[in-house]
């Protein structure tokens, strides 16, 4: 049964990768990377159960954290042109 879940997540990974490659805008790529990170969390959790050793869920936990922090860092880069210098957004930055 876990293999069905893994297959579903792998198919979704392929679709997400296609979106990340085609991209048209940078935001599409960021969205694809973020969504891909969630899929990685899922596949690691499912694989742990598939092999019968679900004690490796810590990795999935770290992934969930890193993914969120990464997305926010990237978006800060895009809104302000760099990673969080204290100044208001200027239109010529992007």
């Amino acid at each position, binding site marked *: 049964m876990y293999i069905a879940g893994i297959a579903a997540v792998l198919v979704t990974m392929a679709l997400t990768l296609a979106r990340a490659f085609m991209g048209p805008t940078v935001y599409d790529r960021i969205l694809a990377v973020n969504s891909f990170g969630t899929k990685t969390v899922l596949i690691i959790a499912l694989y742990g159960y598939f092999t019968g*050793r679900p004690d*490796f869920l810590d990795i999935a936990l770290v992934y969930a954290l890193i993914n969120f922090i990464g997305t926010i860092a990237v978006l800060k880069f895009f809104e302000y042109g760099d990673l969080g210098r204290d100044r208001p957004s200027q239109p010529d930055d992007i």
Partner: protein
Amino acid sequence: MQAFGLFNYWVVVLLMMTGLYIVTASPNLIKKIIGLNIFQTSVFILYITIGKVSFGTAPILVDGVSRYSNPLPHVLILTAIVVGVATTALGLALVVRIHSAYGSINESELQNEDAADS
């Protein structure tokens, strides 16, 4: 099934060559560092593939399991990943420095500027 036993190595070679192509063909220094990282990760996958044992599990001892994958490549790669990120950071710092000194990070422009100086 024996024929597929080498599949991992072939993908590793493909990744390695992609990294090598980026490093040699791209004039942009940041892109070169990305290529270097791709190359590096392919080496990691090569080592981890060698360490895998069929039907083995992760080398964390539990009762009732006697077949584990080889922990030694994992240790080596653990060290290599951290060192790899340290060298990446150093390389990127060099890129930033080069940009503030030359105003460009394009390899051919840098060479032209050096030739004009001397």
